[in-house]
């Protein structure tokens, strides 16, 4: 019974990672940029949600929406200012800029409001907890899992079935060729960042609701974990991010459950490295060897 409870714990935690990883992988898949600032957009989303709830006295869902919209805009602005000029530069240069942006958002936030944490009001979404044969499943974690699955399906649909999705994939493969099709590359990339950042914003608000505590550096660790989850599943692959996130959550929970909570992240990284050694492009990634 305890084991099942622990699996449930792991899945709840993993859904959060998955939620952030979806946006990560989306941006990576299209722009091939490891957007280290993604975790910080997530943090900004959490704060925007917090302020709309406490200052504007809005409900949870309106706040979620506001946070998504603001984060989408924020993501687009970041891309336009910091990444767009580097589109033809090496990817590592863009990575350093992303690190810079990440630090800027973190410490900009601290400068504006200090480093102390803030707490979401409790019981924002009154959900009943389930009790299945002694296994407690919190209503909120079901909500989170549900949300991430829905978003995953939605994203997969957008990227593979819609016109903008096709444009995104075309851009990801060959920007100039995409231009020749009449695709507006800048707008397509902006759309990618908008969607990815909106997801991060949503994840931030949901995180706030679930864990209550938010603070300016809160994005670092979940951002890193989400990145690991995205790699685990195969970077750029949407269902991969979901699976990677859940897997990571479950591994962490089980390691803690075995009484080695301090080794939790260590084990997660060992598993990551092992998976990469045997599947060098992640679980779902095809290890396409460069055609010679």
């Amino acid at each position, binding site marked *: 019974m305890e084991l099942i409870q622990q699996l449930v714990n792991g899945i709840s935690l993993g859904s959060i990672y998955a939620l952030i990883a979806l946006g990560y992988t989306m941006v990576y898949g299209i722009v091939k940029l490891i957007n280290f600032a993604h975790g910080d957009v997530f943090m900004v989303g959490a704060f925007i949600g917090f302020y709309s709830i406490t200052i504007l006295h809005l409900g949870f869902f309106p706040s979620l929406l506001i946070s998504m919209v603001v984060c989408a805009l924020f993501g687009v602005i970041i891309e336009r200012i910091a990444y767009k000029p580097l589109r033809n530069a090496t990817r590592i240069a863009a990575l350093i800029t992303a690190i810079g942006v990440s630090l800027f958002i973190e410490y900009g936030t601290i400068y504006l409001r200090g480093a102390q944490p803030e707490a979401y009001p409790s019981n924002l979404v009154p959900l009943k907890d389930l009790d299945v044969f002694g296994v407690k499943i919190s209503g909120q974690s079901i909500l989170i899992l549900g949300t991430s699955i829905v978003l995953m399906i939605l994203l997969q649909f957008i990227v593979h079935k819609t016109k903008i999705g096709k444009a995104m994939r075309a851009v990801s493969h060959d920007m100039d060729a995409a*231009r*020749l*099709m009449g695709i507006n590359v800048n707008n397509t990339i902006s759309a990618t960042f908008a969607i990815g950042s909106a997801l991060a914003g949503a994840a931030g608000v949901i995180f706030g609701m679930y864990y209550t505590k938010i603070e300016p550096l809160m994005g670092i660790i979940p951002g890193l974990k989400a990145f690991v989850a995205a790699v685990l599943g195969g970077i750029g692959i949407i269902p991969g991010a979901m699976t990677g996130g859940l897997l990571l959550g479950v591994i962490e929970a089980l390691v803690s459950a075995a009484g080695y909570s301090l080794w939790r992240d260590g084990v997660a990284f060992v598993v990551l490295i092992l998976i990469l050694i045997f599947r060098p492009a992640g679980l779902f990634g095809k290890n396409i060897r460069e055609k010679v």
Partner: protein
Amino acid sequence: MLKINDINVYYGNIHALKGVSLEINQGEIVTLIGANGAGKSTLLQTISGLLKPKTGEIIFENEHVAGKVAQSIVKRGISHVPEGRRVFANMSVEENLDLGAYLRKDKKGIKEDFEKVYQLFPRLEERRKQLSGTLSGGEQQMLAMGRALMARPRLLLLDEPSMGLAPLLVKTIFQIIEEINKTGTTILLVEQNANMALSIADRAYVIETGKIVASGSAEELSQSDQIRAAYLGGH
């Protein structure tokens, strides 16, 4: 139809096109020949809006288009089949063709054009669902041309369509180019395979290190000793 006046294009400090002028009339096949690095691709990219000329003008159907973004140029009816095919490898043949019609909204017309392209390249119809990255070189070239046709261009820019293709396919491709031209599409053809290109072209330009050095009817040029020596091989 297209008139280029004295354009200059730079890559950083490299002066790639030096005052190039040229003209293409409705319904023609015009070919542009020249050695490696002469600036042929650069010229095509400038026409299609991937590169911006520093000075000079490009007039397409009485409109100034120099410096406009690629997207608006495609909309005006110029399609560019780039060097090296550049198909979207992770997408199916059908999706690639669909992207060719990205800017179009007329569902019916698009459907018709699918049929037309499949008629022109029956091979593509067979491979509709195949990922284009796994096609052979010749098939990819067909796909690239089909994709460009999906935009219903009035002017088609072809950059070395025969590069790396087997002789049999080269012939097929050139036949197809003539067919496309017969349906009313004007063509600007860049080729290394100058013999072939001159054999189907109406007129030709010769470019050398960024400058047009000769022009005339295809026949004239293929007779010229100088051109023969430099581009057609001493056979």
